[in-house]
């Protein structure tokens, strides 16, 4: 069995990084979070634009996502900072995170003497948490503890010919070892859903998949618009992708060939292992954040044109099948998949390389995006701003 070196957490999951998260419950607290993390080494800011004037399913989705991020296995512990007048409350987030067995503390800026005093207060708390986290050590753990998020961005026709099939080879290897991969971006399943549904472990899971794709397509139809206005994107079309069907058929190659085990709603934790699908939009920041909240410890991004997607919370590996993009953006590509279209290496060889690189990153090797500090996070909204 394949192994990697990870941090065993109290909830039974395994982290591949060991940060103290400092998370805002609301956009207003971001400046305090930013300053605390600039001051205290070993901390990681988790900031977003939501947390206030949200209701119903939109409120629930934001809370679920923040609880998922706050309890993430790549965090040793988390400090939640609220402002004071928002409806996504720091103490409620902290209580939910504590229930999930993650060490957590919280405070409110308005109850702590204001912005500047809160920076001081939070820095003192974070310093103590960072000292505690610094004694934790990596241990050998089974690959079956790994959950890999999959995403593509700035796709072109090489994505479906080279990078995505190579990721598919890696996905099959990971699943064979008992691990999990999450395919997302429901927009990019449209036109390829029958392929995935055929591979569902049972009829219910197959129907779940068809349902999320239909729902997505219906939403576009109800707006009375042609989805082609945004999918494929103008960039995709310029690079030769003709239709959403073509883009999707290339995109689902990332999922490999194993049975589909479970279909997840946005930011929900998986209950199964193996190949999973999460209902997310195609746009990267919202899509990857949903998978992070589900507990994915690492992210693999394929790109045609070379996009800068990355995360500090969830180390991100990138690869492109486009020789031009590889040349221009080598500094953000961890694996060279352009050798596939150049006929220098096979899809299987590059897939194997990627698998080995993912294991190295899981054990502590830094990705190019991580070293450059590329960091994206955005919570998907499910309702209007009030």
């Amino acid at each position: 069995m394949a192994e990697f070196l990870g941090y065993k957490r109290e909830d039974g999951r395994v982290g591949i990084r060991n940060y103290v998260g400092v998370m805002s419950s609301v956009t207003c607290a971001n400046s305090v979070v930013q300053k605390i993390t600039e001051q205290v080494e070993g901390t990681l800011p988790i900031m977003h634009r939501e947390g206030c004037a949200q209701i119903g399913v939109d409120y629930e989705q934001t809370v679920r996502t923040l609880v998922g991020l706050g309890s993430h296995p790549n965090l040793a512990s988390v400090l939640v900072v609220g402002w004071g007048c928002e409806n996504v409350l720091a103490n409620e987030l902290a209580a939910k995170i504590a229930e999930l067995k993650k060490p957590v503390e919280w405070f409110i800026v308005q109850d702590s003497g204001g912005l500047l005093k809160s920076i001081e207060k939070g820095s003192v708390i974070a310093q103590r948490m960072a000292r505690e986290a610094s004694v934790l050590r990596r241990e050998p753990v089974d690959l079956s503890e790994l959950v890999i998020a999959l995403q593509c961005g700035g796709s072109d026709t090489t994505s479906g010919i080279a990078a995505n099939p190579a990721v598919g080879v890696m996905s099959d290897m990971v699943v064979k070892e008992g691990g999990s991969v999450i395919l997302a971006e429901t927009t990019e399943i449209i036109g390829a859903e029958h392929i995935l549904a055929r591979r569902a472990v049972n009829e219910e899971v197959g129907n779940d998949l068809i349902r999320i794709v239909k729902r997505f397509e219906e939403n576009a139809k109800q707006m009375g618009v042609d989805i082609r206005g945004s999918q494929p994107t103008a960039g995709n079309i310029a690079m030769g992708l003709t239709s959403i069907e073509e883009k999707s058929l290339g995109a689902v190659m990332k999922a490999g060939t194993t049975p589909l085990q479970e279909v997840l709603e946005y930011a929900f934790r998986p209950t199964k292992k193996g190949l999973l699908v999460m209902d997310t939009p195609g746009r990267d920041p919202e899509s990857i954040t949903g998978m992070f909240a589900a507990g994915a410890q690492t992210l693999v991004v394929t790109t045609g044109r070379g996009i800068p997607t990355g995360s500090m919370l969830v180390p991100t590996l990138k690869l492109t099948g486009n020789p031009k993009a590889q040349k221009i953006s080598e500094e953000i590509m961890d694996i060279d998949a352009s050798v596939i279209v150049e006929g220098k290496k096979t899809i299987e060889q590059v897939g194997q390389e990627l698998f080995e690189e993912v294991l190295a990153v899981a054990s502590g090797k830094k990705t190019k995006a991580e070293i450059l500090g590329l960091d994206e996070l955005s919570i998907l909204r499910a309702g209007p701003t009030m």
Partner: protein
Amino acid sequence: MLGEVRGGVILAEKRAIVINENDNVATLIADVTAGEIVLVSREDKEENMTVTQDIKFGHKFAIKPIAIGEEIIKYSEVIGRATAPISVGEHAHVHNIESMRGRGDIKEA
């Protein structure tokens, strides 16, 4: 531009990929100009074909004659339908192919 000689045939240097034998389009992995010969690679065979237009890297051309309304096949799956006849070697893209999914602009019968 021509390159390697194999089995008495001079193989073109610029390549295009056919992913499945059922496909009626090939994907170019080089910029080509009208009249240029390209090497079309499939899983089991390679053959030279002539493109009839200037076509960019990553774009597709027809490898079989395609009638108006006919399905465009890539990955052995439908990626759209032809809105104009497409002849062998002709650029196949949004100007002569339309998507059939997520079309809120079309009223269902």
